[in-house]
């Protein structure tokens, strides 16, 4: 059997695959955070809860309305993103003129409310969401077994990340977003409805989290606390990549997933902390993050 530094190839590749899957979720979530932070300057602490709401909405939709996975994948981001737009329009906008720390506190409070309400209703023990029929099974690649659903998650998450990057960096709408991030007052003086742009941006960031939630539902137990544990790691990823950098969020998310996976192979005890170690090192050497601009 082929060995890589004393580890069987199949085990090595399997952990790398798991790391890449986790990395895809880190990328999707930190991307949403970066988009929101760019324009609103708010650290969206409700992001984990909104990811959880995505998974929960998919689960409840299946149980009570019979919505299948594919419908949920389209519909849930729209619904949860819509909820996000209401939150921005009626809550965040009212405190937009205050120090951005208040936005952080407010979204943190919202996250606790979402989590607490769902714990009250459904308890903390997770439920499982069935893998959609079309994506069951897997393929033997020779050196490892690749479950179809995991391959799909990777493709879908990366596809959405790249589409988001393209929209922001290469389209007119994205130019509005970048310019609005720099100088919102001047954008208004050009006739751009900046408050509306902010609402849509927050909704889009939240929809990305909800999309990640639906993707995650068949992989991880769906529980009210699934977001809060993940969010801590995602914040570390954002700090490493640099706040507000789109490409940085994507690349760092994937890289950190891989580093975590590799650590699981060679030194499992450190697997849960290795990302924070990287964060500490990056903060000391490049405080603005690997892709951030020094100000």
């Amino acid at each position: 059997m082929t060995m890589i530094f004393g580890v069987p190839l199949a085990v090595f590749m399997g952990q790398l695959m798991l790391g890449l899957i986790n990395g895809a979720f880190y990328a999707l979530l930190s991307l949403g955070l970066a988009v929101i932070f760019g324009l609103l300057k708010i650290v969206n602490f409700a992001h984990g809860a909104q990811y959880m709401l995505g998974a929960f909405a998919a689960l409840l939709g299946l149980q009570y309305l019979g919505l299948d996975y594919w419908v949920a994948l389209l519909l849930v981001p729209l619904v949860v993103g819509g909820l996000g737009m209401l939150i921005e329009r009626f809550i965040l906008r009212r405190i937009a003129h205050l120090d951005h720390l208040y936005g952080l506190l407010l979204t943190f409070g919202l996250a606790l409310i979402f989590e607490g309400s769902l714990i009250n209703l459904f308890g903390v023990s997770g439920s499982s969401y069935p893998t959609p029929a079309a994506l069951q099974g897997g393929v033997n690649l020779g050196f490892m077994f690749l479950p179809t659903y995991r391959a799909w998650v990777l493709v879908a998450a990366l596809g959405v990340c790249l589409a988001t990057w393209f929209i922001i960096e290469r389209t007119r709408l994205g130019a509005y977003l970048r310019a609005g991030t720099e100088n919102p007052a001047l954008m208004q003086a050009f006739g751009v409805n900046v408050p509306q742009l902010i609402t849509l941006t927050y909704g889009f960031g939240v929809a990305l989290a909800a999309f990640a939630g639906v993707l995650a539902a068949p992989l991880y137990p769906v529980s009210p606390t699934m977001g809060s544990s993940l969010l801590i790691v995602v914040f570390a990823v954002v700090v490493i990549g640099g706040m507000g950098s789109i490409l940085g969020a994507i690349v760092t998310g994937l890289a950190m997933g891989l580093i975590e996976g590799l650590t699981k192979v060679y030194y499992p005890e450190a697997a849960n902390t290795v990302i924070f170690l990287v964060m500490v090192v990056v903060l000391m050497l490049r405080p603005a993050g690997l892709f951030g601009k020094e100000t």
Partner: protein
Amino acid sequence: MSDAAEVFTDYQERDGAELLRVSDLHAFYGESHILHGVDFDVKRGELVTLLGRNGAGRSTTLKAIMNMVGRRTGSIMINGAETLGMKPHRIPRLGIGYCPEERGIFSSLDVEENLLLPPTVRSGGMSIDEIYAMFPNLLERRRSQGTRLSGGEQQMLAMARILRTGARLLLLDEITEGLAPVIVQALGEVLVKLKERGMTIVLVEQNFRFAAPLADRHLVMEHGRIIEEIAAAELPSRRDHLNTLLGV
């Protein structure tokens, strides 16, 4: 809505019709009272300067027209419509282009993205080819990051991008500030061309020698008010008086 819009259009197209009327305009930044009852009007096709010392309220007047300051009272009529209650993003859609003193070139956008950024507010704006013909430097550097341009090129870009939008009333704030004489001269030629195209221009200017040959009227501001109006024809006889007012 459509009827009213047509009336405005007719109204605007008549040369010499009043395009902008500011009456008893007061403006505040937080607690500080900056404008103390500004009154003036600008007719279609005119080029009017706002002169005065630093802090006289000239830039604030332009910002107040764009609803970019804090609280405002009084009246700002554009094309016969009261704009004091309008949201900031509605005002440019009346056909106004604003060029801020700090130029406001976006560093995260390249030159062409900067140029294409402001949405079209009316039909009849200059095409991108016409703009590149007027500002050949921008064509050469269209893929450069916006803020990598020289000061003069950035100023050209800041002007060029509002010409594309179809705006008919341009509010230009200190466009010659800190630029080399040869660039200032080029900007003067641009303003002459814009006037020939029937643009109406309000120019906040420190450089009186630049503004004097271009303007139809000069408005002198002090302490947040217009204290003097001098038509171009009166200029030779009142030059000394004006110099006293401006403290030059």
